[in-house]
């Protein structure tokens, strides 16, 4: 099955008996049917049918969130990424080459969380291979308004989703594009934000891309204070929200290149805020 997310095509090979729509429901709006004569270059290929066990690697990253426990190992040909749902003990793995072009995954399909694990693996594969090209996977909520996109960043629990929900409540003609993991692409010197199949707890899977109006880092505060950021401050505001394997020097450099461009060419702000309408108006109107 092929999907097109942020205008990049990737392919997922599943066991022949798998029901794709049940397994990857959030990917349905992104299904890509190619015409015979055109050959789209693939961003990556993830094959769940030809995994083979590998030698031990070196653990380079470990993280746990409500989606699961993920470990990343450096191995000779690239990376092995292991994933386990926090409520299950089944361990799943994928092996990617250094470029994240060809990925082989071993999914234990009997795990009741297999679908979520596959979804997480695809998110990692997508964000790393996107870095190789012209984009970034970023933790953010994304709102469309007047044909442009506003992104809200912040540490987990800061209230990105709450702030986005307040936009929907108070701003006419605003629309949620994604609530957790949109993609950014820089094309012809314009930064765009795209909806993706990864949207956290909010089921919002929109196959839309819009020019970015503004990126705001949010922080909870007892009062609403807005400050525009430039240069290094803007760069530093973006970096912690981006999905990257930090130990991968090459991908990290690519990320820094793109963030440098964004810091210089995009409206980036820092908003200390309350969860209220005033915060939304301040964010929307200070531009």
């Amino acid at each position, binding site marked *: 099955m092929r999907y097109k997310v942020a205008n990049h095509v990737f392919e997922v090979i599943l066991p022949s008996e798998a029901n794709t729509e049940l397994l990857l429901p959030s990917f349905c709006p992104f299904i890509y049917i190619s015409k015979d004569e055109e050959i789209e270059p693939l961003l990556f290929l993830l094959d769940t049918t030809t995994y083979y066990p590998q030698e031990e690697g070196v653990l380079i*990253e470990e*993280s746990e969130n409500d989606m699961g426990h993920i470990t990343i190992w450096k191995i000779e040909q690239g990376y092995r990424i292991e994933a386990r749902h926090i409520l299950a003990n089944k361990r799943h793995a994928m092996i990617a080459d250094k470029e994240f072009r060809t990925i082989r995954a071993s999914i234990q399909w009997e795990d009741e969380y297999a679908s979520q694990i596959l979804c997480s693996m695809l998110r990692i594969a997508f964000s790393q291979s996107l870095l190789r090209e012209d984009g970034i996977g970023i933790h953010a909520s994304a709102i469309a308004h007047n044909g442009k996109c506003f992104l809200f960043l912040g*540490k987990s629990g800061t209230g990105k989703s709450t702030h986005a929900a307040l936009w929907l409540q108070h701003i006419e003609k605003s629309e949620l594009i994604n609530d957790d993991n949109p993609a950014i692409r820089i094309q012809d010197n314009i930064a765009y934000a795209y909806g993706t199949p990864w949207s956290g707890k909010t089921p919002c899977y929109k196959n839309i891309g819009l020019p970015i109006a503004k990126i705001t880092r949010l922080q909870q505060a007892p009062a609403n204070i807005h400050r525009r950021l*430039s*240069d*290094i401050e803007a*760069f*530093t505001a973006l*970096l*912690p929200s981006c999905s990257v394997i*930090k*130990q991968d*020097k090459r991908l*990290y*450099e690519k990320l*820094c290149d793109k963030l*440098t461009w964004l*810091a*210089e060419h995009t409206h980036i702000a820092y908003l200390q805020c309350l969860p209220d309408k005033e915060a939304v108006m301040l964010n929307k109107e200070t531009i």
Partner: protein
Amino acid sequence: MRTKEDLTLRKIGNKYMIVDTLTEEINMVDVYTMNETAALLWKTFNKRNFTQEEMVNVLCNEYEVTQEQATNDVENLIKDWISYGLIYND
């Protein structure tokens, strides 16, 4: 002295920075800011061995400073770079 491998000096707006990628803690980022003078010295000596005297000479050639001022500035800069792990002093 020599600079740590694989550090990239970036110009952003009219400022300079080095982003250290090998921070252990997730989501902790070390961004080291440099002014134009420091950036010039970094560019001159990156990826090779150098001495304090060589740095002072560059400053004296490029800017209107006394030997004493330059030495003082370079000493402070070296301390700073060592404390941020940007250079090795061997």
